[in-house]
């Protein structure tokens, strides 16, 4: 194994460990919180960060740290649910369209074209606006705008895979269409799709937070990072910690998942992953710079 590959593998292991730690924090949040995240105490309103309230309190005297811990569960798990559902829907539609072609393919791909022609967030706003407020509806809105890109990607992979000799060989073996789809086409198409999905987790967390910020996501008393930002924006001058810490939580989580997505791509798709390293090495070699 080359040094680049070892590095990519270790980076993935570390990032997976961090993501797992975040997951455990989310699951254990109700036991870990130092204060009741829902308890309103106007006497403690807008308290700066201190020993009792590590990240301070919001305008209603609720502990920001506790709310961030509890909100992580909603923000992260909802984003994972959105990505998972869009991946499954996109995969199924894209695989069937790519393998069978015909009228169904034409109809679905024109539908995909229409969806992709709209800016994603605008469409999500419209869908959430039509369905009404609530976390469930925000998830549906993001799923409705997210599946077309997976369908398009899955279709393009399947179009290539169905012309591969190993698929022809499977057909000549006498395997049924479903067996070929499930045993040969889908597993080979899934790898790049998982990479795409892992890269989009960060964006989805931002999307959900954005919808919540605009009042279309989680509704009180449910806690979500985007809605915490929205609640605290009026107090940004007097108590900046109310928006700073939820913003920091979103930032760290999005960066973590983006790096995780990059690492998954590096490890699952080595042909592309080490391209940049090779380029840098070749450039250093040409210019006589010793390689790191």
């Amino acid at each position: 194994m080359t040094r680049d590959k070892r590095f990519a593998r270790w980076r993935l292991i570390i990032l997976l460990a961090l993501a797992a730690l975040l997951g455990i924090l989310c699951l254990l949040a109700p036991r870990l919180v130092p204060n009741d995240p829902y308890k309103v105490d106007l006497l403690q309103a807008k308290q700066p960060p201190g020993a009792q309230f590590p990240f301070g309190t919001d305008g209603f005297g609720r502990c920001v740290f506790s709310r961030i811990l509890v909100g992580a569960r909603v923000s992260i798990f909802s984003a994972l649910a959105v990505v998972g559902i869009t991946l499954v829907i996109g995969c199924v539609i894209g695989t069937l369209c790519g393998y069978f072609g015909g009228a169904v393919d034409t109809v679905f791909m024109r539908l995909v074209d229409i969806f992709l022609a709209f800016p994603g967030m605008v469409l999500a706003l419209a869908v959430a606006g039509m369905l009404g407020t609530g976390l469930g509806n925000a998830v549906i809105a993001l799923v409705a705008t997210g599946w077309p890109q997976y369908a398009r990607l899955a279709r393009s992979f399947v179009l290539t895979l169905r012309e591969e000799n190993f698929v022809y060989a499977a057909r000549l073996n006498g395997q049924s269409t479903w067996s070929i789809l499930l045993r040969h086409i889908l597993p080979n198409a899934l790898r790049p799709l998982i990479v795409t999905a892992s890269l989009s987790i960060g964006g989805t967390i931002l999307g959900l937070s954005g919808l919540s910020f605009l009042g279309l996501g989680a509704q009180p008393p449910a806690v979500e990072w985007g809605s915490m930002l929205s609640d605290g924006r009026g107090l940004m001058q007097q108590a900046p910690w109310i928006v700073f810490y939820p913003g920091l939580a979103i930032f760290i989580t999005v960066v973590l998942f983006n790096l995780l997505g990059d690492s998954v791509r590096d490890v699952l798709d080595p042909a592309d992953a080490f391209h940049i390293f090779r380029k840098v090495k070749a450039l250093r070699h040409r210019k006589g710079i010793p390689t790191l």
Partner: protein
Amino acid sequence: MSKYVLNVVNVSKTFSAHQSTVEAVKNVSLHVGAGECVGLVGESGCGKSTLARLITRLEPVDTGEISLCGEKISHLCGAALRRAYRNVKMIFQDPRSSFDPRMTIGASIREAIKASTALSRRERAAESVRLLCEVGLDASYDRVYPRQISGGECQRAAIARAIGAKPRLLICDEATSALDVSVQAQILDLLRTLRRQQDMAFLFISHDLALVSSFCDRTYVMRGGEIVEHGPTGDIIARPKHPYTQKLIGSILAP
């Protein structure tokens, strides 16, 4: 039962893309008898591989009729076509691409056995190893991935997978073209042995007339989607009638 394992009658195929059409196969007729080895030669792009794909129904025919062991397959689909596939198998030019990169060689062979026989899981595993040994590979190849072995070994494994179903016809589509000369000879020896041991007919597709002449009883010469000459291989080599065949023979390098 028909006297032919394969009978192709007046088959044509045209491909259309945007405003252009390409007539890849034009009114082709050929037959392969039981246990016979028939060669199909021609330059690249003359329609040999398209014809192989039509015979195996990987592409639908436009006109004409194809029969495998007396059964017309041109319009079969679903379970009936899958049953017909038991009589025909194909070996591809690039052996690695004919194996799923995610599956071990053994898993691919076992999958093929499962699709064509009613053997149990344990019997399939034993049969997979037996087939590998039959083509000159040992049991350790059962656990390797296609990318971990050479092109020649991969082609042997592809042959093992193909003969597992005991097909009546084996189509070799440029099966040795991607291999170096010594490995080509080994694969040809293996095919000769299989032909002796099993009552299997071969349709040997190649652009190399010298290779076909060393292996086939009869030969069809194809050009521009049409069969321009056919007959016993010895006659084709000794007394070529069509100018294209004469040109092909003229291009064989003298030893």
